[in-house]
């Protein structure tokens, strides 16, 4: 290549970076205009930070692994124990903070597995179509016809309770939403002229599906994934509350509320604070998802 061609390529690259940066700035401006979106981002960032540095900031790290201090059981919130202590004397604040990491891991695993199952199936249903696509859609409909929590309880009661089985069960019933979403989006994209053009130059179906269709579905997938992080955490906490999910001494919020329930009303702090943590986490992800949608996928509402 001549120097001139090099210079041109470099300039093209530079222009691309500049326009990408401008685009990002525009997105940030739209996102920042909405106080609720910014609050959601703030909440999520705060909880991620807590999940990461949790073990270093809690006053009694051993309380999340089954330590017993009967001499200080069921103490009211105080300077030493911000959220009080539970029935074996464990610090509720420590357990709520360390529970953040547990909940985030659960939410992330469920969302990723569900997307990995649902997105390819959605592409198949929307772009490949035919008999296979039809079958995929019908199976999806059947899964959507039973509320996720009920189906998850059924699967867990077959597999046996425990946090790993609960996550597997929820992930197994969570993917249909992605099929529906990607199916609709892929159908629309198939009509676009660039897909037509790719077909005209002889590109294979699979290649078109994964090079052209899938990347253009990413924005709505991202929006849904953000919302799902919250809902998946909520569902896992529900299983924990029922008693089919995480088991003590694992500091999972739903299970903590379930145990604290036996100590109401006198020892209210035991179940009040973990519930507040769930509420704020789910709220954060929902607001963030709303904000992302306004930016990335403004045409779809709700």
């Amino acid at each position: 290549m001549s120097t001139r061609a090099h210079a041109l390529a470099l300039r093209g690259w530079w222009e691309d970076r500049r326009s990408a940066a401008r685009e990002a700035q525009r997105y940030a401006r739209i996102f920042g205009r909405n106080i609720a979106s910014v609050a959601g981002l703030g909440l999520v960032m705060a909880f991620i930070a807590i999940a990461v540095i949790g073990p270093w900031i809690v006053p009694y790290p051993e309380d999340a692994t089954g330590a017993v201090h009967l001499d200080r059981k069921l103490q009211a919130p105080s300077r030493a124990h911000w959220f009080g202590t539970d029935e074996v004397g464990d610090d509720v604040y420590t357990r709520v903070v360390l529970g953040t990491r547990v909940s985030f891991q659960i939410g992330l695993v469920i969302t990723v597995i569900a997307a990995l199952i649902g997105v390819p199936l959605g592409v198949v249903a929307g772009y490949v179509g035919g008999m296979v696509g039809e079958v995929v859609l019908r199976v999806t409909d059947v899964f959507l016809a039973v509320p996720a929590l009920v189906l998850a309880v059924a699967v867990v009661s077959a597999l046996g309770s425990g946090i790993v089985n609960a996550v597997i069960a929820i992930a197994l019933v969570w993917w249909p939403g992605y099929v529906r979403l990607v199916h609709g989006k892929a159908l629309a994209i198939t009509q676009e002229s660039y897909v037509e053009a790719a077909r005209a130059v002889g590109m294979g179906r699979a290649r078109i599906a994964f090079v052209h269709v899938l990347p253009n579905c990413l924005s709505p997938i991202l929006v849904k994934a953000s919302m799902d992080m919250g809902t998946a955490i909520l569902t896992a906490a529900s299983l924990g509350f029922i008693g089919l999910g995480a088991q003590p001494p694992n500091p999972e919020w739903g299970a903590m509320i379930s145990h604290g329930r036996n100590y109401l009303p006198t020892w209210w702090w035991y179940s009040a604070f973990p519930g507040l943590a769930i509420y704020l986490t789910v709220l954060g992800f929902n607001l963030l998802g709303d904000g992302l949608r306004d930016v990335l996928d403004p045409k779809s509402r709700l």
Partner: protein
Amino acid sequence: MKTYFAARLALVGVMLFGLLCITFAITYLVPGDPARLAAGPDATDDMVRTLRAQYGLDRPLAVQFTTYVGGLLHGDLGRSLRSRNDVRDDLVRFFPNTFELVTLSLLLAVVLGVPLGMLAAAHRDTWIDHLARVVSVSGVAVPAFWLGLMLQLLIALDLGWLPLGGRLNLTTPPPAPITHVLLLDALLRGQWATFADAFRHAVLPVVTLCFPALASILRVNRAEMIETLRQDYVVSARAQGISNFRVVTKYALRNAMIPTLTMIGLRYGWMLGGTLLVESVFDWPGIGLYAVNSALSSDFLPVMGVTLLIGVNFMLANLLVDLGYAWLDPRLRRTAS
């Protein structure tokens, strides 16, 4: 209209078959041994072997599936391990309570959610709109079981205004069954004291179960109303001097109701799921509590029975929603047939 209905009904049949496949798969293809599951944790190997032969678990899968579906068609859902009761009898006994709870919650959610969404859309960026937004983001984020516990703590235990849980006080005589829906039966028999007691027990569970549904119905209705109020026909109705109230309630609402109706149908199903949590919190004797207690004691068949019952209910609700569309939007009737 008839063909539309027939097509929808046929689709429900297909879905039902799919649902049976799923429950069959969960029951028979789980990594654990279904005979061991059915026999319970304390069974000896001999007992498990007997059960396996008794349930035909040693036969080919296709045969097992036909037997399974055949049994279900005859209303055979198996027996509970804990109580040795027929699962079908248990479901018949508990379902009216759940139906009562879900219906009241859904009614409350629609009665509050639709007008509030309408008001918020008609008065954007006023205090009522802000309130609507707070309710709609909080409602879907707050864990129902925790909300229930906090309501118990505050209203039942602290203030003592309402009972903590259960369906009736021990001293209240239940009405002789007519419809098996307690509030209705008490009303029909004219037992006012029983009705009042049953109502007081219902308030907290209904409010708890209603909140997430209220939030999403409100949210959809607000968004749809905002969109509809921008349409040309609404503007021209206004230009003709039709009052704002009439424009919003008569002209705009009908169109905004279609997506709202979808959400109401969806929420009905999610509420049936939510009863597992809310009934556990309030000790409400419905199928949700039944499923949870069975799941906790590894009593497998009742859980599958509840799953099927909820699935069927949800499918029927969606059928009703489809018919509702056709009623709201005449164009759908024509295209479908």
